[in-house]
């Protein structure tokens, strides 16, 4: 049994699975049910001045018959009075002293408002604060959420205001709706953030009903952009976590989220530098009980790898993430088809033929059976065939020993620079 307990900037929880600030953490009733089900922490649905919500609010994007590949919402922050939330936080913390409760906060960008709310939530015993600079819809039109989260100066200043009074660790939750998330992450660090969390939802329009021509979702025939999350956003979130993790000046822990649906994505995020993960869509899709397999699967994975503590995963893959210019241009892999596993769907052939490098031949073996063969000399090792292949183990991408020494683009440019400074005409 590996140690699953987590310590994120001093916030401790029995396991690395937290519910993200969202509908699952809307009330004490829900958070207590979640803790009973086994969640390690919960970031309470964002507190602030209570707002009004619209109906409907959610939409999902399916893919090939699967229900929730992506999830879209136009819900705002909590619509319940602050006092009610505070009372329920207090009661929940008393019942579950070892679980992490983090208050997510969003107020107008003034020093006074931030001071006021921080004091109120710390008084009821939260373990930490998460500043919501991320919500892309509604609140942003009022200058909050991602409207402040997109301006590094505002992120820095508001974080600093919170830090002036906060006694618990401060996490700054960042919006992905920005060209380079490391700019705002660095601003949060400069403002004194103890940790950053990412990603909040991505600007999105889930769809258009092709019969009524209404947006999906719509409110009485009108739509507005929403925030996108769920399995489809994982690669975007993972990249943002990784970019922050490898950034030399963003040296605070990261709470990762965006498309975590099982322990597998949790491991990926942690390897890429996240100290624990937060989950929203998967819980909304299946209920709180999914955490059981998240913990069990993670534990078995750690045991199998001989890792004692989940904290030992954090950041292990970060140094493997670099710039394109540092990749070895001379490394070569080629596709190899195992005809005894292959079921002859010919998808690899047509994918390579129509859209890659025309190097998978459809042939017959001596017995006249259909076989496929890669012409290795023409294969560029793009992976496409192995991606479209429906059978595990039918296509291996194997290293092709070409005898060339490693050479990155950067090394190549440097070498050319060195040569050309010797005034040699390279073209000839």
């Amino acid at each position, binding site marked *: 049994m590996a140690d699953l307990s987590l310590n994120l900037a001093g916030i401790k929880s029995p396991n690395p699975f937290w519910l993200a600030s969202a509908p699952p953490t809307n009330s004490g009733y829900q958070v207590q049910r979640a803790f009973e089900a086994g969640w390690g922490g919960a970031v309470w649905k964002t507190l602030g001045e209570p707002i009004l919500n619209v109906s409907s609010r959610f939409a999902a994007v399916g893919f*090939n*018959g699967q229900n929730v590949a992506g999830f879209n919402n136009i819900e705002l922050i909590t619509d319940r009075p602050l006092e009610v939330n505070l009372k329920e936080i207090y009661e929940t913390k008393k019942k579950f002293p070892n679980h992490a409760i983090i208050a997510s906060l969003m107020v107008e960008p003034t020093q006074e408002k931030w001071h006021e709310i921080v004091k109120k939530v710390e008084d009821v015993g939260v373990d930490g604060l998460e500043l919501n600079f991320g919500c892309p819809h509604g609140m942003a039109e009022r200058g909050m959420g991602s409207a402040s989260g997109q301006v590094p100066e505002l992120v820095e200043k508001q974080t600093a205001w919170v830090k002036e009074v906060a006694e618990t660790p401060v996490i700054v939750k960042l919006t992905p709706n920005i060209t380079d998330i490391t700019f705002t992450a660095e601003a949060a660090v400069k403002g004194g953030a103890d940790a950053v969390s990412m990603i909040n939802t991505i600007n999105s329009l889930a769809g258009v009903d092709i019969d009524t021509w209404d947006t999906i979702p719509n409110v009485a025939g009108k739509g507005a952009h929403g925030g996108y999350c769920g399995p489809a956003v994982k690669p975007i979130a993972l990249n943002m976590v990784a970019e922050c993790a490898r950034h030399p000046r963003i040296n605070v822990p990261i709470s990762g989220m965006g498309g975590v649906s099982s322990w597998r994505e949790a491991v990926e995020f942690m390897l890429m530098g996240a100290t624990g993960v937060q989950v929203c869509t998967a819980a909304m899709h299946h209920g709180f009980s999914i955490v059981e397999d998240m913990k069990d699967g993670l534990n078995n994975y750690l045991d199998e790898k001989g890792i004692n503590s989940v904290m030992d995963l954090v950041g292990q893959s970060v140094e493997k993430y670099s710039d394109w210019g540092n990749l070895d241009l001379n490394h070569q892999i080629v596709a190899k088809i195992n005809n005894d596993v292959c*079921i*002859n*769907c*010919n*998808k690899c*052939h*047509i994918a390579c033929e129509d859209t890659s490098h025309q190097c998978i031949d*459809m042939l017959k073996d001596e017995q006249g059976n259909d076989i496929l063969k890669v012409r290795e000399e023409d294969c560029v090792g793009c992976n496409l065939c192995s991606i479209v292949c*429906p*059978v595990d183990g039918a296509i291996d991408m194997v290293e092709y020993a070409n005898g060339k020494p490693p050479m990155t683009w950067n090394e190549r440019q440097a070498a050319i620079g060195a040569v050309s400074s010797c005034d040699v005409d390279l073209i000839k």
Partner: protein
Amino acid sequence: MTTLKSKGISLENLKLNFEEVHDGLNAQEAMEESNRCLYCYDAPCIKACPTGIDIPKFIKKIASGNLKGSATTIMSANPVGASCARVCPTEELCEGACVLNHSTEPIVIGDLQRFATDWAIKNEQILFKPGEKNGRKVAVVGGGPAGLSAARELARFGYEVTIFEAAEEAGGLDTYGIVSFRLPQDISRWEVDQVEKLDVEIRTNTRVGTDVTFDELAEQYDSIVLTIGMGNVPMLGIEGENLEGVHDAIEFVKRTKSGAITKELLGKNVVVVGAGNTAIDAATCAARKGAADVKIVYRRTAKEMTAYEFEYDFAKQDDVEFNWLTQPIEIIGDNTGKVTQLKCVKMDLGEADEDGRRRPVPVENSEFNIEVDAVIKAIGQSRYTDLIEGFGLDHEGGVVKVDPETLQTSNPNVYAAGDVIFAKGQGEAMVVTAAQQGKEIAMAIHKQLDPTPTAII
């Protein structure tokens, strides 16, 4: 509701027993299954379909919600594609070739095909248009799957086509021969209607050779397509065949498809002679008419029977009992002329005969009698030999001889397809082959009469 043993057969409402047994896929099942198809390139399932339906294409169209396009893809390759979705032995054809047999479970291609064509039927779609008239006329003799298929394709090429059909309705065995709990008549009717909508004239109740002569057709039409199928069940050649209670399986099934379901077999003992498609259909029909006991007697063993595995299973579910190596030798009646017993002899398998199946030989002194109220003969179908000779066509035992490429008979203006050219020893005849041959005839006629290529609309 009183039901019989495990059968789920109602004894009160016999009509219910003749409703389609297999539910189609619902929209969600169809969506999930269609998304499971890999969309193979050069897909083996296409090659295994005698009509070459572009299976991945029609399945993809189901997945994208383009059901009209899906039904069009199916029906374009197979003019009786809605019937085939229900009666094709898919395990031996498309589904048997699906690559997923080698990894998980094959796609239920037949059910998806039914889903798409059912949609077209329900939504009263007309999927094709007649071609621009080219002034040539073709007579199609027999409006079963083969004839309908030839007529549909010829009409799309621009021919003026007339189908001469002896029965009250076209559709052949799809309409009258295959039991309604596997293939309801409405499905076949819709296919007939699709052909009629292409300005094909269908003259029903018109038997060629009786109501109109072959020579008249030869005079009035540029080409003749002969798709008359086969006839009723031949005589067993034993005593007592004319007793009351002895039925011809084809006629027997036809009556369950043409009128009300009658009650004369309720609680009775029935023996069916034979073990092919027809025998299975007759036996299950008898069971569904409420017979207390249905036995199939067959002179060979399960291994030699031509019925498909799924048919065999289906019959067993209806509690049909199989008696192998049993040959009827006499039908015995009472003094009112009603059948009472079937005398049989036990058989043994001897040497293989010309079609490779071992020849059964009687076991001495093994005669025994089975008490019966009805005997249904289902030992295959007879040939229209006299008619074929009357048309002056070469044949072999009533099987019309054709050029395998063009399906041309010994008369170059006469083409033949379907059961009328189906020779013994090829297993069971299939609707889908008849449909494909009909298409091939249309192509061959078009090549012969109008070699300039036409675009199909």
